[in-house]
């Protein structure tokens, strides 16, 4: 009351009112801010309703609401969409803004979709569960979609695509991308890794974990489980096909060749064991990890691998200038060289290691060499196919000084073969199929090494080597089991093709509906009169309706009202 003391009564009243108004504004501001944040309420002020979720997207993700979308315990499965920055940053950035709002909209429709924004710069441990290797980097512009133990990390840029027909134009492909990510992490409730067992392989036997063989493979088993895979065994010759839930097939150190029925191989309908692998790799995104002993010759299996890009020698590899003695002191371990090709697949997996000046080493014990079976190229078209390639990728190599030794007359590996050279210790074959309709690429992978004990405990469990991280990175990258959204969500359209589609350029996004510029809305169909162009639906110029309302209120009505009130007060006071 000291504020009003000594003042006139009117002054005191106005002072109190002012204080109340200020406090009210503050309180309202707080309430509104809290409510908007909590409820993700926002106003889409664009003329075209960019932030709306299309019916097609809702339909595509309707499986989230299905009654059978539950885990083993009967609980509703929950999809989490994690943005790696604070909301204000997400909104400020045009690439993340649309994705963020789309995710929030989806969360409104399907309550089991949770959206969170985590500042990974301030709180990096919040996303540590999504790091495939200890050095995996997660960027603030990344979006992580996860369900159970499976996740996909995608940069926000991937929600946009550049149009072929309209160079420089960006197209928002977000609904297709988000639906695909959600489908990919939810397609299998329990993706499995299978150890093939019927060729004398070394595998992990869940039923006999204390066996010597299981103990050898226990570290890989733990790694697989840690990557969200449940582990099973598979007798390939006893099944018609590799099971649908197989996210990773492991053929570890086979000692017997793959079999086929010689009486039936002249039948078109006969499927041999290696053809089962063909089917697995070509029908979806198959992934196989193979460790093969260079000393064991398996003509049929090697014939299969040859077609997929791998040529095995039966010679022992030595890299004497680049070896260390194992901790047991029993054998020499070759130190692998990391690829420095920053655009290469191998670098994508372990680039963090390759960049370190004192990188932890990846080692190979008793090993042979793998080389590319494709003649003068690292890439060939799959037989009969036009948009399918098989690509050989060196993964880990020796130094330039490695030598190959064949068995001499005494059965010892002492007979030098060829010159000193860089040789591949492990390599990948990547089958890539491009879909011209969706611009989507589908990949299958085979990881191969000629070191029979590469996946065994002695090496994987030794934390002084990078082997665990490298294998973890490989598993994480190749054991993808993606499913894809319907193509109706894809293509070069904005939001949805089913409703005419909208094309937007980067300029338009920046303009964001508030500036007076040409605004073209296109169909996703081509113009019948000019088939090279999309059909133009309409061209807008000037401000959007909402903007016009806001501008009218802010620019015209408020000042006018203030002016009128001021005039009235002025006149009243003067002629009172």
């Amino acid at each position, binding site marked *: 009351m000291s504020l009003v003391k000594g003042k006139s009564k009117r002054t005191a009243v106005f002072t109190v009112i002012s204080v109340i108004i200020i406090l009210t504004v503050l309180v309202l501001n707080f309430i509104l801010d809290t409510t908007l944040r909590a409820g993700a309420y926002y106003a889409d002020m664009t003329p075209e309703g960019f932030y709306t979720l299309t019916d097609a997207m809702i339909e595509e993700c309707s499986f989230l609401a299905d009654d059978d979308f539950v885990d083993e315990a009967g609980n509703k499965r929950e999809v989490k969409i994690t943005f790696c920055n604070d909301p204000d940053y997400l909104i400020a950035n045009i690439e993340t803004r649309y994705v963020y709002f789309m995710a929030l909209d989806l969360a409104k429709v399907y309550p089991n979709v949770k959206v969170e924004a985590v500042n990974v710069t301030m709180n990096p441990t919040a996303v540590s569960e999504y790091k495939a290797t200890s050095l995996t980097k997660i960027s603030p512009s990344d979006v992580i979609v996860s369900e159970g133990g499976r996740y996909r990390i995608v940069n926000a840029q991937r929600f946009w695509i550049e149009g072929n027909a309209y160079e420089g134009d960006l197209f928002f492909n977000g609904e297709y991308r988000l639906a695909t990510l959600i489908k990919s992490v939810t397609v299998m409730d329990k993706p499995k890794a299978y150890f093939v067992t019927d060729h004398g392989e070394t595998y992990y036997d869940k039923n006999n974990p204390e066996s010597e063989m299981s103990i050898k493979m226990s570290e890989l088993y733990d790694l697989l489980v840690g990557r969200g895979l449940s582990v099973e065994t598979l007798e390939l010759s006893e099944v018609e*096909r590799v099971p649908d839930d197989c996210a990773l097939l492991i053929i570890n150190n086979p000692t017997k060749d*793959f079999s*086929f029925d010689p009486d*039936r*191989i*002249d*039948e*078109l*309908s006969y499927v*041999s064991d*290696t*053809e089962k692998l*063909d*089917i697995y790799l*070509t*029908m*979806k995104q198959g992934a196989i990890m193979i460790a093969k002993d260079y000393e064991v010759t398996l*003509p*049929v299996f090697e*014939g*299969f691998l*040859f*077609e997929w890009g791998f040529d095995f020698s039966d010679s022992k590899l030595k890299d004497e200038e680049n070896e260390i003695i194992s901790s047991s002191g029993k054998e020499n371990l070759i130190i692998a060289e990391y690829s420095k090709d920053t655009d290469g697949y191998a670098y994508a997996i372990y680039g963090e290691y390759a960049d370190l000046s004192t990188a932890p080493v990846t080692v190979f014990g008793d090993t042979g060499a793998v080389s590319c*079976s494709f*003649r*003068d190229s690292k890439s*060939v*078209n*799959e*037989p*009969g*196919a*036009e*948009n*399918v390639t098989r690509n050989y990728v060196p993964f880990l190599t020796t130094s330039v000084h490695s030598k190959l030794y064949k068995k001499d007359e005494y059965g010892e590996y002492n007979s030098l073969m060829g010159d000193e050279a860089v040789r591949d210790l492990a390599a990948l074959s990547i089958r890539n*199929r491009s879909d011209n309709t969706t611009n989507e690429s589908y990949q299958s992978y085979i990881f191969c090494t000629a070191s029979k004990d590469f996946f065994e405990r002695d090496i994987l469990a030794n934390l002084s080597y990078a082997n665990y991280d490298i294998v973890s990175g490989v598993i994480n990258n190749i054991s993808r089991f993606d499913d894809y959204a319907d193509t109706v969500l894809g293509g070069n359209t904005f939001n949805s093709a089913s409703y005419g589609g909208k094309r937007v350029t980067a300029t338009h996004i920046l303009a964001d509906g508030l500036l007076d510029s040409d605004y073209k809305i296109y169909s996703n169909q081509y113009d019948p009169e000019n088939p090279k162009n999309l059909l133009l639906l309409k061209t807008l110029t000037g401000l959007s309706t909402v903007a016009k309302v806001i501008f009218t209120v802010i620019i015209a009505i408020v000042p006018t009202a203030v002016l009128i009130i001021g005039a009235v007060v002025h006149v009243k006071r003067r002629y009172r």
Partner: protein
Amino acid sequence: MKYVAKKNTKIRILIISSVVFSVLLALAIVLHFVPFGEGSENPVEKEPPTLMDGEAYEKGQALAYPSLSASNITLISIKNNNEKSPGTFHFIRPESDEEGKIKNFEIAYEDKNGNLKYYYPEICEEDYSFNYENLYAVEMGDSFKRIPKLTYLCSVLEYPYFDERIELSSDPLERERELNMFSLSKEKAQYLSFVYTDKDGNEKTRKITIGDASLSGKGYYFMIDDRDYVYSTSSDYYSFALLGVASYVRPYIVAAGISDDNGFGPYLTKNYYQWLGQMHKGKEETVEAGSRVIVYGDIITPTFNDTKNAPDGYIRDGLSSFELDLSALSESGSYDRLIKALVGQKVGECEESIVATLTSLYASSKVIDFGEKTSLSYKYVITEIEAVIADERDVTEAGTPVGENNLVKVKYELYIDGVLISKTPYHAVIDLSDNAFLKDGFADKIRASSVGKLSESIEFTVDYTKENTTGRTVKYVIEEIISIYGQNGKTQKIIDDTSIVSYRYYFEIDGKKSGESITASLDLKNIEQKDSDVKARLLGLEVGRNLKIAVRENTGYYEYFNDFVTYEISKIEYFVTEELVSAFSFVNSADRDPYYGESLYENLLEGKYSLYGLASGVCESVVKILGGISLDGQSSDAAGLSGTETVAIGLTPEIMNEYDLYHHRITFELPRQIYEYYLDETKESEQYDSYFSLKFTLYISDEKPDGTRYIASDLYDVVTKVDGKNFVFLDYDFVSFWARRYMILMDYTEIDSLSIEFSMKDLVGGYNFDLDDNDEGKSIVMVTPFGECDDNRLNQYIKENNYKNGVSLTELYNHYVGGGKPTYIDDDTMGTTYFREALLGIFYTQYQDVMSKEDRETAINESNLLFKMTLDTKSAAYDYVYEFYRADDRRVLVRLYKQGINGEMLSEAVDDFYISTFGFKKIVRSFTYVLNAEEFERDIPYPNER
């Protein structure tokens, strides 16, 4: 205290200033009196040495002789004693032309036998744009990388400055020791002499003896003429005088492209042949027909001049090693006797020298020059029977009777119209079966004689007239006018005698082309009188090909006595057999066989491998390497192929052997002055050809342990060293490297029909697909089943409709997919589109790899035949038949051959490759989809599994 402190400070400043000043003063005095030593940045100029006779002082430097201009030097001779590059060689400046223009030095060297050889490689003649100066090796150690080494050498001769003159001891022993110390003794020194024209126009010679590099490591010791002292110089350019002749020659292998061709020359390479050679040195090995034989011996030809150099009437090349390419020699037909003599001979010293005489039908030495006369009387006085020429070799043993042998080598004196022509004896081969020798019993007399000197000479007289001699018509035929340069540059027509004409010609004898075509240039302005008829015929002609213009015609009249050449071979050093690995030629799209239509290059191999198309990309990369185009796409300039250094000049057998050059041989024609043309006025399809070409033969070694190879180029006549990484293609055979890996790759519209036959356990039947165009120009595919067929929609439909001549795929798909309504994909019917997809599935199937011979033999068995495909193309009178045999779980062997219209095999089958079972099943499945009117995607191999 403050005052005291201030005072101390002042004193300290004064003391320090004094010390600094004193030090600077002392330094100035010392530096003034003490000169800087050697190596200082500011050397003190030395007093010039006192000049002796013949020396000069120019531009502040002492010269061993007055400076001169390189343009006045006419000859530089270098005798090199060092171990690395011993030998003697010369730089010889030809006389200036009529306009006084000074010509560039030409290089000459002495071979191992001391014979002087000019380095004037064929490229100088073959490439009209070639400049001899381009052959000079440039110094890559300087910052310019374009100044010839010869220029550096000349600079030494032009301006021979020296730093010190060192007197030599008068004591002979001490003097020898001193010369040894500077490596100027006779055994160690390098000798350089040069001839120049002095200011007065007199020709003078100077001799420079060059020793070691100076003790300081910079500069050399040298002596001039017969002066009795040694000069030291800081010039390093004397090192150029220590180089071998090869170092002065640029390591060219293949010529750079010309700007007119924009780098496209190599792509249009024609007649590329690559051989893999094997050298046979074993003493038990015997010479094989068609091999290249390196022999040691002599080549002897009779002379017809009275010369002191050939008192016995024979000119001998001299004993040396030389190569006889039996394959090339056999083509001419004139060397059969020599070939017979060599084939089957053991490598090594011959137990008895091989002597083989070859007669030359068109030798000019036996031409009768009637002049104005109508008849000439020839009297041959035979004094000796030198040899009886048997089928395999000459029999020279004295006393051997001529008997029934027809060919006899004789020595004789020749009188024409009663005048003895030459005191030097003449030699000829006479063929006693010739009726002309029946006259006066001459043939009988010879037959009654024996090899050796005749106790009584035998005469043969004949009055030659143009009627009774052998007359042969020799024509000089121009087949192509390549280019014409007139006063205003390049023109199309020879308007006047100011033109310079490049043209290609050949000789025609008695209506038959003799030898290969020759490219020549003629400056009509400077044409010699004897060629005036050629000039007259050329005027008015235009640039063009296939001209066949006879510009000169002569008739030659020949004696009955034949000229000859005799080979005397005492040793077969070794022989080389060669296997043709690859052969191809650029072919225009209009000239291609549609079956191989996708490839720029035509397979020139003969035999079964001619069936395989070529991997166009492989051929292209090889011709790019040879043409000097960067493989990594960094440069599209045809920079030509060069080595890193020239290691030898002259492709003698010794050098070929030393550098291991018998391993690989490549010949090819590099086009020059490409032009484009069109087949019709629509100008839709560009075709290319060139006005002329350079034909190279390269001899290449195996890769050496350091990763290099040696390559010799015939047109440049040098052996060079190259980085071997681009030449790994030499190590592959045809099938594994050069052969096209696509089973079929051709234009769909060129297919007339395709017949397929399934013979699998669960799939049998034959179907013929006939391709035709409907009225709208669209393809229609009629399918007719044959033989025993499994049930499918096609067979059902045909049966239901009682069709006799098959059904079109359009109708089949319309029925089953369209429900009776037309079905389309894009602008074609669904039936035709899916048939085309099935074909594309085959086109995109590559051979997986080569199958071993043992596996091939096992696989090719009637019981293993799974599928057969017969392809009939529109332009060929035969079919291509593909048979697919099961080899094992993963492999299906492909056998290919040509088949005539009656089903007969027209070619040997090839069966080197297999395809994967994966690819095979995909092909078969795609046809089953078509026969069942089903839709399918080629990129999805197992659609039912998805």
